[in-house]
Structure formats: structure tokens, C-alpha cells
């Protein structure tokens, strides 16, 4: 293959959704026609999704990016000698010097979009397996201490310190313990888990192996939502390659020391809640469990279980490889390290931005996102998924950190930012929050099951102008009750988007000062 020019075209689902496979077919055909010596590599996405399909050509001056490429552009790219990095209207320059990318701090996503996701050698050449190598020489308590020391907190949304969770599981006396990866990334506006699983799946597997060594678990499950068939296919291949390479370790009887299973969800948002995910993994309806006991003490099949988000687990290898201090030095306050933020909705430059905690929402939306795709002014952004608050444009200077957001009545969640233009009707968004809760509630507790229905009806009355002041008061009471009385975050946080919309956009609810 010497002399072949390497061309990278992502096999990430987002890139495929806008024609990456067509581009690959066109490049292959055009190269054959011109007898050009090329080697196509299907990498993950760099996260600059507005440039997808992003074609990269390896040149002596670095990887040159061309995007967004359509199949019809390919002949023109060859004419422009893009194999040598030639100029073309679609040329974006060296990929890693594109400002959107260059200003990021890629730790968890360091390899994503760089390597072939299913090439273990490529993985190892880019720092993979170093964390596991270190973990294998450490005592379980030392691994837990390193994770605790790094300040890593659960990236699924709740932000609970990962090391403390692991410590609790380590301390349990049980012959059987489990590592469960929550890959039920159901929040609208989030796709970081998917991108990582498709672009660097071995980092998740390595993280789960490290967790198993840390707590003494012998089995692991990845619970993946069924809306991600492409990620499922990648993970299946990655797990098989990992096991074939003997990286799961061996017991005396030849069976793997750590057995990893991939389980698919079946279309239920609530299964992203950890206890309902455990029920689902046991083959049951995904109904929430009352806590205590916490899963770390009694989780899957009643055994001590680590339940972590994809990104938390995939960050563990880096922490062990580079040390807790390296990770801890990023971030602010009690939010240490980096967060992969996801810019979505009506945004010009949508994609993934991994930055240290502390970046402002304005910087993300304006500097990275470049404002709206539609060209209309930004009115609001919903941060943290369907259960997160709507933040008005005037509040965009808030720092993106767990505590700073909480102080303003918002939350970071899984780091999704959904931008809305001035055409958005906030009463309708509030109604949707309740309607979504009605559809996706597991039905176990009354505040959520009934509250969502009554909440939706009440907002409809407000929209119709029926006794708006009284109904707003009723809505507020109902939201208080749902917040205080629900069993889990589904019912408990649905009031957040509702009341933030009422508070910041009273003009949309048929009355002035409606939120007071």
C-alpha cells in the first residue's frame, strides 16, 4: 500500500445520514477511473457536523479537510488535486487547525475521528490500552483512588462522583458484581455517547474493563437504545475484536475474566434512568425502582452494580494513563475535567465541542455555533435535554459547570444545548415537556403519571386563554408537587423546562409577570 494516499470519510451515523456512503462510492469510482492510488479509511466523526460528510486527505502537511462534500463534488475534488491537498471551494484547511476544532480540549474524544474505530493497532498507536496496562498493575483501591482524585463526575446528567460510586461497589462483599454502561442516550440534543461508541468504541470497553478491575466485577452490560442501530453494529464488532485479541483476560478454565454483553433497549426514554435500566436489563418492564437501596449495593439481579454513563467510563482509561492530576487540572470549582458539549437545534455550526468546564454558554452558541442556521436571532437554548431548563438569550453568560448552572435554576445534564430562534412559542414548548412526560412516564408513581397529563391540560387552557392567571398558579403548584413527590428525575425534573419557560417568557403565557 506504499504510496497510496489515505482518505478518511466518517462512518459515523450523522455523516452517513447526509450521504457519506455515497461520497465513498464516488471517490472509489473516480479513483479507479483515474487510476489514482488511494486507501479509504472509515473513521469516526470529528464532531464538526455541519461539515459532514467531512473528507480528510492525509498529506505531508497534515490531514486536509474538505467539507461538506456531496457525491457530485468528488470529480471536482480530483480535478483540484485534492489528493495533494489542492485548493477547492470546499477546502477547510488542515483539520486540526479549523478554529472550531483547534480551540477544543479533546480528552475523552481525543481519538474520535482520528482513528479507524475498529482497528486495535490504530487504537493502541494513539494511546489506547495504556490505562488498562496501568490498572492491571494496580490494587483495586488504587484504581478507585485515582478516579476519585481526578474529580470525574457522572456524565450521564446527575454528576455524582464516579470514584465514590466505585468505592461503594468495591466495599460490598459479593461473589458477583456487575458493570453496567448506560448507553440509553435519549435526551434530545445529545449525541456524544453515540459519536464515541461509533468513533472510538474500544475506549468504552477499556473503561469498563478498568471499572471491573477496580470493583471486582466479572460481567458487564452495555444497555444501548434501539434508536442507535449503527452504534450497535460497531459495538458488536468492537467487542468481538477485543475478545479475539485476548484483552478480556482469561480464567483458568479459559473463559474470559470479564464478560461483556451488549443489550438493546426497545424504545423507552425512561430506561435511561438507572434503576429502570436495570429492570429492563433483567428482561422486565422498565419501571423505576424506589431508592434505597442504591444500585451500588443492590443493582442488577440484586448484586452490587456500577452504573455509569458511556462518557464517564470512556474517560477512565485516560485518567489512569495520564494521571488524576492531568485530568483534574481542567475545569472549575467542583466540576473537574472536560465536558463534551453538544450543539444542536437551529445552530449554524452544530456538533461536538469538548471543553473544560467553565466555558460560557454564549461562547458555545456564538463563537463555536456561529448563531442560528436559519439566520434568525436566538431566543433561547434548552440545556441538558428534555428535562433541562430553557435559558433566555440574556442569560447566556452563565458558565457551563454543574454548580453554576444549578444556581440559575438550570442543569448541565448530559451537556446538550438545543438552540431555538425567535419563532419559538414557549407555551408550546412547555406543553411539549408535559406531553413528553405523559408519553414516556413509566407509570409507577402518581405525580409523574397523572401530573404530566394534568400539566399538559392546564397549559392547553393557558394557551387557549382560559383563566390564564389561575391556571398558571395551578401549574406552579402542580410542578412543585411533581418536583417533590416523583420517584425519579422524569417526573421530578419535567417542571424544570416548564417553569423556566414560564419564568423567563411570561409574555408567551398570556399574562405579564406570570412567573412571579
Amino acid at each position, binding site marked *: 500500500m506504499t504510496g497510496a494516499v489515505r482518505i478518511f470519510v466518517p462512518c459515523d451515523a450523522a455523516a*452517513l445520514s447526509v450521504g457519506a456512503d455515497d461520497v465513498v462510492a464516488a471517490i472509489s469510482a473516480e479513483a479507479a477511473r483515474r487510476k489514482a492510488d488511494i486507501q479509504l479509511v472509515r473513521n469516526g466523526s470529528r464532531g464538526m457536523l455541519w461539515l459532514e460528510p467531512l473528507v480528510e486527505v492525509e498529506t505531508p502537511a497534515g490531514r486536509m479537510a474538505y467539507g461538506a462534500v456531496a457525491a457530485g463534488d468528488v470529480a471536482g475534488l480530483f480535478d483540484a488535486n485534492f489528493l495533494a491537498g489542492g485548493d477547492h471551494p470546499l477546502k477547510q484547511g488542515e483539520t486540526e487547525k479549523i478554529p472550531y476544532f483547534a480551540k477544543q480540549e479533546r480528552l475523552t474524544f481525543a481519538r474520535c475521528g482520528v482513528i479507524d474505530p475498529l482497528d486495535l493497532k490504530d487504537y493502541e498507536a494513539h494511546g489506547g490500552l495504556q490505562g488498562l496496562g496501568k490498572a492491571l498493575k494496580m490494587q483495586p483501591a488504587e484504581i478507585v483512588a485515582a478516579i476519585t482524585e481526578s474529580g470525574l463526575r457522572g456524565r450521564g446528567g446527575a454528576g455524582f462522583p464516579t470514584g465514590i460510586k466505585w468505592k461503594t461497589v468495591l466495599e460490598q462483599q459479593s461473589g458477583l458484581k456487575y458493570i453496567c454502561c448506560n448507553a440509553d442516550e435519549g435526551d434530545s440534543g445529545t449525541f456524544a455517547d453515540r459519536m464515541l461508541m461509533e468513533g472510538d468504541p474500544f475506549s468504552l470497553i477499556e473503561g469498563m474493563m478498568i471499572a471491573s478491575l477496580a470493583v471486582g466485577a466479572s460481567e458487564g452490560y452495555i444497555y444501548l437504545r434501539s*434508536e442507535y442501530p449503527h452504534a450497535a453494529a460497531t459495538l458488536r464488532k468492537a467487542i468481538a475484536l477485543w475478545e479475539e485479541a485476548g484483552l478480556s483476560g482469561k480464567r483458568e478454565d479459559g473463559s474470559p475474566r470479564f464478560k461483556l454483553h451488549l443489550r438493546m433497549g426497545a424504545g423507552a426514554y425512561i430506561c435511561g434512568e438507572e434503576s429502570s435500566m436495570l429492570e429492563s436489563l433483567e428482561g422486565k418492564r422498565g419501571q423505576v425502582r424506589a431508592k434505597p437501596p442504591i444500585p451500588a449495593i443492590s443493582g442488577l439481579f440484586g448484586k452490587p452494580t456500577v452504573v455509569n454513563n458511556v462518557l464517564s467510563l470512556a474517560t477512565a482509561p485516560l485518567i489512569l494513563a495520564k494521571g488524576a492530576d492531568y485530568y483534574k487540572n481542567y475545569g472549575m470549582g467542583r466540576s473537574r475535567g472536560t465536558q463534551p458539549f453538544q450543539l444542536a437545534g437551529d445552530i449554524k455550526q452544530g456538533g461536538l465541542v469538548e471543553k473544560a468546564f467553565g466555558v460560557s454558554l454564549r461562547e458555545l452558541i456564538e463563537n463555536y455555533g456561529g448563531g442560528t442556521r436559519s439566520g434568525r436571532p436566538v431566543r433561547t437554548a434548552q440545556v441538558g435535554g428534555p428535562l433541562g431548563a430553557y435559558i433566555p438569550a440574556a442569560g447566556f453568560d452563565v458558565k457551563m459547570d454543574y454548580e453554576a448552572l444549578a444556581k440559575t435554576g438550570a442543569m448541565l445534564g448530559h451537556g446538550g444545548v438545543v438552540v431555538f430562534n425567535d419563532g419559538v412559542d414557549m407555551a408550546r414548548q412547555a406543553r411539549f415537556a408535559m406531553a413528553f412526560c405523559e408519553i414516556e412516564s413509566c407509570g409507577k408513581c402518581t405525580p409523574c403519571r397523572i401530573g404530566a397529563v394534568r400539566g399538559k391540560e392546564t397549559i392547553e387552557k393557558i394557551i387557549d386563554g382560559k383563566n390564564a392567571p389561575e391556571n398558571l398558579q395551578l401549574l406552579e403548584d402542580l410542578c412543585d408537587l411533581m418536583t417533590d413527590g416523583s420517584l425519579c428525575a422524569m417526573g421530578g425534573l419535567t417542571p424544570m423546562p416548564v417553569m423556566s419557560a414560564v419564568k423567563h417568557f411570561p409574555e408567551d403565557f398570556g399574562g405579564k409577570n406570570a412567573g412571579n
Partner: protein
Amino acid sequence: MAVLIDNTDDEEVRRICAAHGDRPDALLEILHELQAARGWLTDDALRAVAHILNISRAEIHGVVSFYHDYRRAPPPRFVVKICRAEACQAVGSEELAKHAEATLEQGDDAAVEAVYCLGNCALGPAVMIDDTLYGRVDRVKFDALCKKYASGKEHAS
């Protein structure tokens, strides 16, 4: 009419369950595979699964009816899932859904379904047809895709 049929001679169900060690905790996986093989979940097949896994049909009904993915009726020729969650709402998925419902002809034997997030939130509106994801789907792209699927051209790939 109410004859209890022991369908455990249903070799396909037996094979699928056995591949999962006949474990009740693998029920979701077993149902997924069964649906992939047959298009939908029939009473007979569910009865056989209950028998093999040694769980009650009520428990299976509870699971099948809880999750959105499982079908208890034959599927249409193709299923169009339009993301109706916030990120896609922000770029016009509601209008697209209305357009889809108004234009997709009954004769196409297609179903338009709502889905909440396909993980393609920066390239909305997102649509999934069968298992294939599409991004930035405007009306023109939507119509072209549906035409392709209706003519069966996408099924071979």
C-alpha cells in the same frame, strides 16, 4: 376455539431462545430477534416464548406493551420515523411531520411514526426509514426518499 396450543415445536422460537440460554432476562433481545425474523409478534410466538422461558404470558404482555418498539400487528412495507423531540422541533420537524402525514399515500403501505431523538440533533430534522438514518430532511428530500422506498429501491441495499 380456545385451544391451548403448545407451540414449543416452533423451531425458530426455540432456536432464538436457546441462543440466549433460555434466560428470561434476555426477553427484550429475544423479542427483538423474533420481530426481526417475522416482522411482528404473533400470539402463538409469544405463547411459545412464555413456555420456553417459563414465565407467564401476562409478564410477556407487560413487557411487549411497555416498549414502543414491539409490534403486535403486521408491519407496513416501510416505517418512517420522524424525530419530534426539541432539537428537531427547532428546525421544523413538526411541519415536516404534518407534510408527511398529508402526503404519504395509503397505497404506499408506509407508516409515519413519532420518535423522540435519533441522536442526529445537529443535522435535523432527522428521519429514520426502517433502520437507516437521514439528516437535514426537508420536504423535497423527504418526498424523494419516500418515493425511493415505495418503489422498493432502498430495500435491496
